[in-house]
């Protein structure tokens, strides 16, 4: 079944295949350069079937497939490693066994089969068996869940030979708040607020994905002004976070000037967001049907002026950092990932682009027909920390360009900012929303039941795909490289744990 990414489809029109047919179809699509957007349990008849959605770069049509409810099937992971986490999640939530999965273990430490009628025991994080390397001189380093910095909880296990890391295993789930399940039976007005807490640093990203999904389910087109304001929000979010990340990378190399300056400039970008919506993280900016806040010519002039000052400051701060030989020496060839590995693991966003993969939802699945000005998919070849830093620094320029264009357009025009959604969504429909957040592509998938309520809701933060990339990047590195590699990915814990 082929669907246009901007449209919803009736679930009834998605043909039911056997698990083997679905498996072959997904493998074939992925061999042809496709990427698994989603693979999840589709509730029905007391159990769940599989539902898979595959996207191809530069193609506006997605492939959707599903099976009847089942309890086990032949795992895709051995032939298609990017399915590994999706399948672990399926097993954890629906107790559907992917036979032959190479490393089946809990994702979020919820009661096993939590979405089935009879959930089982909750595995404690302590009960997890980690991959272990044995040997007289091999040692293990365990970090977390409570880390040394002000950071979310996660557990990291390093298998080391001296200073060298042979293997890193990351186990998450400490932040699990059951966000997806709270959406079932909705949408309710409070859900727009809940989406802003999926990952606080990506408030606008997740809120936009949620709103876009509901609009696609309802078949509503939002006003152009709302699209402009949303894009402005997303770009300000990108600016703040990329600036902060570059500062953090500078800090971890011991280059304090840029670290200190960028910390301040990041805050200035957040304060710009607060000028528009009152909140530094963009809470209450986006609502289903459009946006909740508008800007007038006077505010636009102020935003533009401050944005240009911030841009000057961050541009020069980053230039100073890249001009330092000691920083460059530290960043080059640290935490390398090959394009092949990135493609195999299905990485997205900055991490994927730094490996040479041209993946950017702003181009692959644009939210509106607003022109993208001089913006390009910023691709680097190295796959190392330097490449990830460079991608961010190039994207800063693009984001400023887009934000300035949007502010100017908004200041010269007026118009509606919200097209209210109908009280009830159409029944039995499936839609997908892809939004390029600052980390990478955020993907939400939703399905309505016969009454038009949300019967199934799945969300994938870019972190869902990219944590495996961080594990891969650490192989063969020194353990002292971990903080730097970690900063260069800067992944979300709660975005993964939900």
């Amino acid at each position, binding site marked *: 079944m082929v669907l246009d990414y901007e449209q919803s489809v009736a679930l009834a029109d998605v043909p039911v295949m056997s698990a083997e047919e679905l498996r072959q179809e997904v493998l074939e699509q992925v061999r042809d350069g496709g990427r698994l957007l989603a693979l999840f349990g589709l509730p029905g008849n007391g159990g769940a079937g599989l539902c898979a959605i595959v996207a191809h770069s530069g193609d506006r049509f997605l492939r959707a497939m599903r099976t009847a409810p089942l309890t086990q099937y032949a795992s895709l992971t051995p032939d298609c490693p990017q399915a590994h986490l999706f399948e672990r999640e399926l097993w954890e939530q629906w107790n559907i066994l992917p036979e032959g999965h190479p490393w089946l273990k809990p994702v*979020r*430490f*919820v009661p096993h089969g939590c979405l089935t009628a009879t959930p089982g025991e*909750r595995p404690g*994080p302590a009960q997890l068996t980690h991959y272990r390397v044995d040997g007289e001189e091999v040692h293990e380093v365990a970090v977390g*869940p*409570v880390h*040394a*910095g*002000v*950071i*979310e*909880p996660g557990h990291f296990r390093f298998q080391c030979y001296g200073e060298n890391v042979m293997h890193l295993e990351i186990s998450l*789930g*400490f*932040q*699990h*708040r*059951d966000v997806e399940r*709270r959406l079932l039976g909705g949408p309710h*007005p*409070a859900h727009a*607020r*809940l989406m802003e*807490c*999926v*990952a*606080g*640093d990506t*408030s606008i990203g997740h809120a936009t994905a949620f709103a876009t999904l509901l609009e696609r389910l309802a078949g509503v087109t939002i006003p152009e002004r709302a699209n402009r304001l949303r894009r402005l929000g997303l770009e300000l979010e990108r600016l703040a976070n990329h600036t902060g990340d570059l500062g953090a990378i500078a800090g971890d190399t011991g280059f304090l*000037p840029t670290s*200190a*300056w960028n*910390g*301040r400039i*990041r*805050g200035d970008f957040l*304060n710009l967001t*607060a*000028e*528009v*919506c*009152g*909140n*530094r*993280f963009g*809470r*209450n900016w986006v609502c289903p049907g459009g946006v909740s*806040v508008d800007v007038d010519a006077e505010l636009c002039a102020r935003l533009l002026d401050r944005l240009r000052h911030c841009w000057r*400051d961050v541009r*020069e*701060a980053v230039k*100073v950092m890249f*001009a*330092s030989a000691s920083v460059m020496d530290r960043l080059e060839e640290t935490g390398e990932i090959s394009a092949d590995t990135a493609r195999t693991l299905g990485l997205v966003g900055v991490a994927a682009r730094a490996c040479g993969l041209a993946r950017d939802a702003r181009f692959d699945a644009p939210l509106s027909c607003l022109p993208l000005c001089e913006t390009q998919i910023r691709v680097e070849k190295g796959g190392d920390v330097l490449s990830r830093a460079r991608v961010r620094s190039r994207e800063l320029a693009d984001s400023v360009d887009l934000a300035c264009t949007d502010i100017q357009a908004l200041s010269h025009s007026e118009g509606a900012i919200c097209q209210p959604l109908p009280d009830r969504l159409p029944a039995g429909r499936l839609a997908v929303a892809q939004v390029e957040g600052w980390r990478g592509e955020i993907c939400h998938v939703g399905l309505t039941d016969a009454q038009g309520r949300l019967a199934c809701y799945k969300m994938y933060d870019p972190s869902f795909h990219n944590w495996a990339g961080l594990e891969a990047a650490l192989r063969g590195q020194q353990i002292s490289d971990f903080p730097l590699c970690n900063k260069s990915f800067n992944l*979300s*814990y*709660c975005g993964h*744990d939900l």
Partner: protein
Amino acid sequence: MLHIIRERLHQKYRTLDYPRVQPGLPARYPGRPEILAVHCGDCRACADACPTGAIRLLSPDAPGPGGADSGPALDMGRCLFCGACARACPQGGIRFTGDHHLATFCREDLILTRVPRPLTPPRRSGRLFARSLKLRQVSAGGCNACEADINVLGTLVYDLGKFGIDMVASPRHADGLAVTGPVSRNMREGLLATFGATPQPRLVVAVGSCAISGGLFRDNAECSNGLEELLPVDVFVPGCPPHPWSILDGLLRARTDTADWTV
């Protein structure tokens, strides 16, 4: 080297002399809500509009703290500061004042009614930590917004260190905890272990609506309904997330022994 110094001059001195100089916040920043005396009748518009159920309408049968018996009681501990109530009220009975001083020593003091009440003093003096306060931050299900705005206090705008306050790497080095998030089931053990590892006497600061009341995750089997279910809390800093200045204000308050303390 010279270009670094040149750029350093260009980046200027940015630290604010807080609390002597108060920050200028955006015009749309909501800040502390204020309940005005209007006649509500049967109107429930504010309570219905609230996404977290932070508003309860008072009556003589169900009075609020301080004996208020009419109008809304707004619980800042559950409030997201989204302003939906103020927009919903047909009489303009709820107003957000832009004041960032939000921290209290007592959970009940976060509940605002039309009758202003004096703040409860801290249950024990924080004077011991007046010149040096080291905190261990624990994120327990937090969405990373509160964590980010605590982290930002270390930047040169706020310069937390100059107050003698630091976020330290181990609970063994700490005088207390700054907790964020609705305390997810999977972090409960980690949080309690961290608290147990903190030497006494120790402070607990709850930062953000999730930590204070569960926020949007209230009444959810995977989360708690506020940190007080698990630990004694000394200072509450409401907000979703609280503005960094609100958090700094809360941390400065944690070191005093009086509720009248004003900056």
